[in-house]
């Protein structure tokens, strides 16, 4: 019998029912905060980076089934990747990994990509700050 679950693929429903990596990371190396209340989706993505490798990722999301599933999927995809590899993840690869999204929900996967990029940007700017303070400390 048709029901709401047929709106989403099995993979989306799996990530919606059992989202991976929910939560926050204390002292994250990068944080992405994207979305807005008007469109109804807000995502926060936290990453921990060691060397050049993303060792952990967690998320918190206010949003629909697709928003939660794409958040969960993107955390699963980035863990273990280098920063450069992570930057290759796009909204399409997230949607594909979830077995596709309904057309009206593709914006959720864009949000996941934005969250990831924003977290990596934050990581880069923190790195710059750190190297500056290190440089300053050396001068002194």
């Amino acid at each position, binding site marked *: 019998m048709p029901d*709401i679950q047929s709106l989403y693929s099995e993979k989306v429903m799996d990530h919606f029912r059992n989202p991976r990596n929910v939560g926050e990371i204390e002292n994250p190396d990068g944080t992405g905060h994207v979305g807005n209340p008007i469109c*109804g989706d807000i995502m926060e993505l936290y990453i921990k980076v060691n060397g050049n490798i993303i060792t952990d990722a967690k998320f918190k999301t*206010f949003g*629909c*089934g697709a928003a939660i599933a794409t958040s969960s999927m993107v955390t699963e995809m980035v863990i273990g990747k280098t920063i450069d590899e992570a930057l290759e993840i796009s909204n399409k690869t997230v949607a594909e990994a979830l077995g596709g999204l309904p057309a*009206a929900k593709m*914006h959720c996967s864009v949000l996941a990509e934005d969250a990831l990029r924003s977290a990596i940007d934050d990581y880069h700017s923190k790195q710059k700050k750190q190297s500056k303070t290190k440089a300053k400390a050396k001068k002194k």
Partner: protein
Amino acid sequence: MKRIYLDYAATTPTHPDVVEAMLPYFSDSFGNPSSIYSYGQEAKGAVEKAREQVAALIGARDDEVVFTSGGTEADNSAIQGVALADPERNHIITSATEHHAVIETCRFLERRGFKVTYLPVDKEGLINPDDVRNTITEKTCLVSIMHANNEIGTIQPIKELAVIARGAGVLIHTDAVQTAGQIPVNVDDLGVDLLSISAHKLYGPKGVGALYIRKGTKLVPFMHGGGQERNRRGSTENVPGIVGFGKATEIARNVIAGEIERQTQLRNHLISGILEQIDGVRLNGHPTNRLPNNVNVSVDYVEGESMLLNLDLENICASTGSACSSSSLEASHVLLALGLTHEQAHSSLRFTVGKWTTDEDIDRVSEVLPRVVARLRAMSPLLKSHK
């Protein structure tokens, strides 16, 4: 597991007696009511009987009821029909919380030069009658205000608005799709000139509705064709649908008093269950002046569609005003008109009870919903920022 359907305001299952009444009119008495031989006259007789049944539900005369394809067509016919009837008047008054069938018809007319006033509502969804009085001009041709809101269940003071409109020589239309068969609806008591109803909201079939047109009301026909419905609406009648609609209204008349009492109890039981068990929940709509079957709440920090999906996994069917459930990605215009924030509008849940809702169904929702909300709040970034 038994599925619990709590979305009766979206649509209702067709009553088995209604289905039974319809069946002969598909293949046995299949005639065209315009034909003079017996098949046609059987069908015509059935349509006229249904017209009497529908008229009886709303206290109208038989010849004031025009069958349509549903509530949307009834709303379109009423508004466009009045707007086009008097070239001297080009102003329409409606409200910010109308159904899309009314709002989009008004927008369509605005693009063609009409002026439309969309009256605001208060935080419980009520129109201020003084606003109607103060916005009527000599150019106003129609006031169109819904009887009760489909999302939040607030019942408007139509009787009072009708006195104001008709006192100023302005026609008044009400969309009674959510009230006909649910609470008493009488066209003379309300004092309206035009009233829309739909069969599938009162245990009749989809694809059929009616527009009540008070005798003497000037209206340009919406559907031009073969002169059916006394030249008010061309198109061969949807005979089985109309018969089913008639039967559904007859059943509604017989059970309405008891159902109002029973559904009000279920509604209040559900509202108190939710408010008592979950923090950060507000009831949307009027606390008492609301439809007996409507519960609408906003649950802080949790998005509506994610709640619906979780409820569906537990076999509970409900509805939300969140953008994510719609193709437009905009939150409910009704909830925003109440002054809710976008977050609150996205966090709304609507439960509407009906004929087959039981106490056990309500208990089950009261048991499941707190669990669903707790689970989603644990992953909500909004909750943290409010700590």
